[in-house]
C-alpha cells in the first residue's frame, strides 16, 4: 500500500479499512469468504483489489482537496523514511502514476501474475504488462537520476 500512496500512515489506515471490509464480508458470508469453493488465492486477490481501490480513492481525495489531477498527487506525498535509498526510491515513485506504482508493487513485491493484477486493477494482462514495462523504465530513469553511480549499462 505504501508503494501506491507513499505515505506510511495513510497506508496503514487503508490496510485497516481493507481488513475491516474483509471482516464484514466474512461475517456476511460474501464471496470469496462465504464460498466453500473459494481458495486462499481468491481471498488474497480480493484483499488486494479492495486495497487497491481504496488507495486510488484516497489519492483521488487528495486530488480533490488540492484540485490537482490524479497524476499530480504525488507532489503532496510526505515521506518518513530518511534512508538514502528510501529517499531515492520515493523520489522515483513521485514520477509514477498511482496505477503504475500499483502494478510495480503487485508484481515485484507480491508476485502476482499479469492476469491477476489485471483482475485487481481492472485491466487486461497485456495492458498490465505494458504498464509494468513503462513504469519500470520510468523507475529506472528516475532512480538513476537520483543515483547516477548506479548506471551500469554499456549502451549509449
Amino acid at each position, binding site marked *: 500500500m505504501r*508503494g501506491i500512496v507513499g505515505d506510511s500512515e495513510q497506508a496503514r489506515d487503508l490496510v485497516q479499512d481493507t481488513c475491516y471490509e474483509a471482516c464484514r464480508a466474512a461475517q456476511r458470508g460474501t464471496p470469496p469468504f462465504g464460498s466453500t469453493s473459494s481458495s486462499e488465492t481468491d481471498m488474497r486477490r480480493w484483499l488486494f483489489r479492495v486495497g487497491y*481501490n481504496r488507495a486510488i480513492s484516497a489519492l483521488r481525495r487528495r486530488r480533490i482537496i488540492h484540485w490537482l489531477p490524479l497524476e499530480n498527487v504525488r507532489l503532496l506525498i510526505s515521506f518518513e523514511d530518511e534512508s538514502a535509498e528510501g529517499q531515492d526510491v*520515493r523520489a522515483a515513485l513521485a514520477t509514477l502514476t498511482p*496505477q503504475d506504482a500499483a502494478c510495480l508493487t503487485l508484481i515485484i*513485491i507480491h508476485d502476482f501474475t499479469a492476469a491477476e493484477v489485471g483482475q485487481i*486493477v481492472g485491466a487486461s494482462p497485456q495492458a498490465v504488462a505494458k504498464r509494468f514495462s513503462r513504469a*519500470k*523504465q520510468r523507475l529506472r530513469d528516475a532512480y538513476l537520476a537520483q543515483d547516477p553511480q548506479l548506471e551500469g549499462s*554499456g549502451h549509449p
Partner: protein
Amino acid sequence: MSQQQPTHVADCAAVARLLPLAGHFLLSADESSTLDAHVATCAACRAELAVYDRVEAAWRRTFAPRWETPPLVSRRSMMDILTQEPEQNAPSTAPAVLFTPRARPRRALGSLSAVAATLLIVVLMGGILLARGHGSPASGGTGPTTVIAESTLGDVAMVSPTEGWAVGGSSGTASPAKIVLMHYLDGTWTPVNLPIDGYLTSLSMSSPTEGWAVGQVPLTQPTQSAPLLLHYDGGTWKQVAVSAQNGQPAQVQMLSATDGWMVGQGFARQAAPLGGIWHYDGQTWTAQPLPASLSAAIPLQSAYVSRIAMISPTEGWALGGASSTTPSTSFILHFTGGSWKVQRLLTDVSVQSIAMVSASDGWITATGTDNAPLLLRYTGGRWVEATASIGNGGTLGRLLDIFMRSATEGWMTCQARDFRGSPTLLHYDGTKWSVSSLPSITNTSTWDIRGITMISATEGWAVGEHEVKSPNYLTLVTPVILHYHNGRWTGYTRQDYLTPSPHGPSIEIPVG
C-alpha cells in the same frame, strides 16, 4: 559504449523492450529464449539487466510489507465485528436507489413540479455544439453521450431558476479522463456530449448565452497538464486555446462577457513559467504577474493561485500558496489600483475558498494546524479569525466551498471528518453558522459536496460526488446533485451504480 557488431547492436535494440519485463513471467517462451541468448553474449545488456534488478530490489526493500499489525486487527476488534448480527442488506442485494430524500421539494413553478423522474439515457443537445481547437465548429450534439457512469461534479452555476450548468470529470481509474458537462433546463439535468479528454474544475456564466468553463488535460509527461478552456457563446461551446502550453486552471470568474479572471497553477510556455492569474478582456486571456514581494516568502515557481473573488473590475481578492514550503504557506492577494498586492501571508494554513459580499465584507475557508477548520472574515479592513462562528467546529472536517448571497446569508460546505461519512452543509443567518439538514444516501461510505450556488434565499443547487460499493467491492464514484427549495435540501443521483463499467449507462438525474 557497446563494442558489439552492427547486427548485434540491432539485437540490443530489439531486446531492450524485453529487459524491464524479465523475471516476472511477463515474457512469452520465445521472448525469454531470445533474451537469455542475447544477454549471455552481450555485456552491455547484461549490465542493463543488472541495473533493472538493482532498482527493483531497492523498490522491494522500500515498499515490502513491514508486517505491522493495524490497530483494528486486534483480537477484540475482530471478535466485535464477527459477533455482530449479519446485515440484512448485503451489497449483492443492495437496493438500486441510493438516495432516501427526507422530503421532496415543492417547487413554486408548476411547470417544473410536473417534471419528475426525468431521465436521460442518450440525450442529444441539439443546440450545443463543440468546436475543438481554435473555434472551428464541430458536432457535439450527435452520437452517444460522453457522460460515463463513474464521474464527479465539482462546480455548478445557474443563469436562472430554470437553467444552469455543472462541470466535472470522469472519476474512474481508466484513463484518459473525460470531461463532464451537464445542463439544467426546465427541470432536467442533461449531460452534454463533449468528447474531450481531461476534466473541468470550474465554470462561470456572465449571462444565459455567455460563459466559460475551465479545467485541464493531463499530458503524457507526468506532473504536467495542459489548460482546458471552453467558451459558451450564443448557444455553442467552443474550446479556446491560450498561450500557455502547461497549466492547471482552478477557477474562472466572469464579471461580464468582456471581463473575466482565471487562476491556477503550473502555467508555462516552453518551460518558461507564466503567472497563476489570468485576465480576459473579451478577446484574449493574458497572464498577470504575481506580486514581486511574494518571492520574499515563497519561491514563485511553486506558487499556485487556487481561488479568486472579484468584487468589481477594479477590486478583488485571490488565494494561493506554495506547494514546496514547509510548513505550508498560504497567501491572500488584493487587487486594487490595477495590480495584485500581497495582503497577508499565512503559515501552516491551507486556504480553500473565498466569497466576498462587498468591498468591506468577505469570508475565507481554510484548514489550520492539525487539519482543524479555520474560518476568516474580512471586516474593518483586515482579515480576522471567525472560526468561533461555527458552532460545532470541533467535529467538522475540512471546510471547502463558500457562497455568500449577502452579509446576512450564506452557505458553506464541509468535508466529512476523516473523509468518511456525510459532509456538512452550514448556513449563515447573519450571526452564526449552523448545520443544515441534508438528505441521506444509502450504501455509501462517504460523500462530498464540492460546489454550491444559490439563486435566491429559498432556492439553490449544490453538486458533488459519492462513493458506492458494488457487490464486488470496487469503489465507484458517482455524481450527486442537491437542490435547495423552501428550506429543504433534496438529492439526486444515478440509480444504476451496480454496473462497474467506466463506460456504463448515462447519469439519470430526476428532478422534482
